[in-house]
């Protein structure tokens, strides 16, 4: 390994960390509207669900494959899927604006829009 290699690796890692932190801050600051979960299949909107209501939705594709979307405690998560790689199932649950869970084999994308309104979340009636 040469000195240049070490510099390259350091630059890549620092750039990655900075971008990740920057995106996180942006996501946390864009949490004004009521949160929605938008599900798209192959770029077309399949359904929109509020993040505040607990529910389980089976996203079914014409060819019989499916993804099961579970919304609970303000988080959206894909809990079951017919795809072979199961990357969407392993993915962490999401709640911030623009966070997404992707299932490449089924072309399903689950994205949070608007983020979470912390004030409403914290209040009790």
């Amino acid at each position, binding site marked *: *390994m*040469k000195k*240049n*290699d070490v510099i*390259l*690796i350091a630059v*890549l*890692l620092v*750039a*990655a*960390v900075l*971008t*990740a932190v920057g*995106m996180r801050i942006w996501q946390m600051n864009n949490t004004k509207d009521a949160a929605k979960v938008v599900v*798209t299949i*192959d*770029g077309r909107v399949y359904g929109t669900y509020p993040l505040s209501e607990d529910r389980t939705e089976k996203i079914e594709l014409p060819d019989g494959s499916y993804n099961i979307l579970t919304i609970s405690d303000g988080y959206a998560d894909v809990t079951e899927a017919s795809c072979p*790689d*199961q*990357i969407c199932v*392993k*993915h*962490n649950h999401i709640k911030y604006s*623009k*966070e*997404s869970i*992707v299932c*490449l084999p089924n*072309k399903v*994308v689950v*994205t949070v829009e608007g983020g979470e309104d912390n004030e409403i979340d914290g209040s009790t009636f």
Partner: protein
Amino acid sequence: MNNRKIAFLGLFVALAFVLSYIEYMLPLNIGIPGAKLGLANLVVMVALYTVGEKNAIALSIIRVVLVGLTFGNISMMMYSLAGAALSLCAMLIAKKIGKFSVTGVSVLGGVFHNIGQIIVAMLVLETQSLLYYLPFLMVIGTITGVLIGFVANLITVRVKGVFKM
């Protein structure tokens, strides 16, 4: 191209094919789409430093087509072709510049492989939200690149010895 080189290129194609299959059976599933170990890149790296650039490009294309036809489908082939092409370009340029050792070239190859796949996935799924994965893929690409580069270096030294005989 002498006989020894031809024989080695055939061997490399077979190796890359088998390593792709192993990777297909043992996916690196950490919940991030596009994250890959890049085992096949090990063979491309060794080829790049032993049988030359043109042969490494040929090897890379043959591998993607073979693996796509055998284990995947057209869309999977598109992902890997974009990843392989971008990764190979980055490695060729890095090698030409001559400022990096095998490790640096391999790291760039790993990072750009992941970037290429993300770009294709963004185009196919028509969503920009995949950009969110980019920093994580950069870190993964760097780590796998260092490991692959280390092993590629060990193998290259020995294969070069065979060519000198």
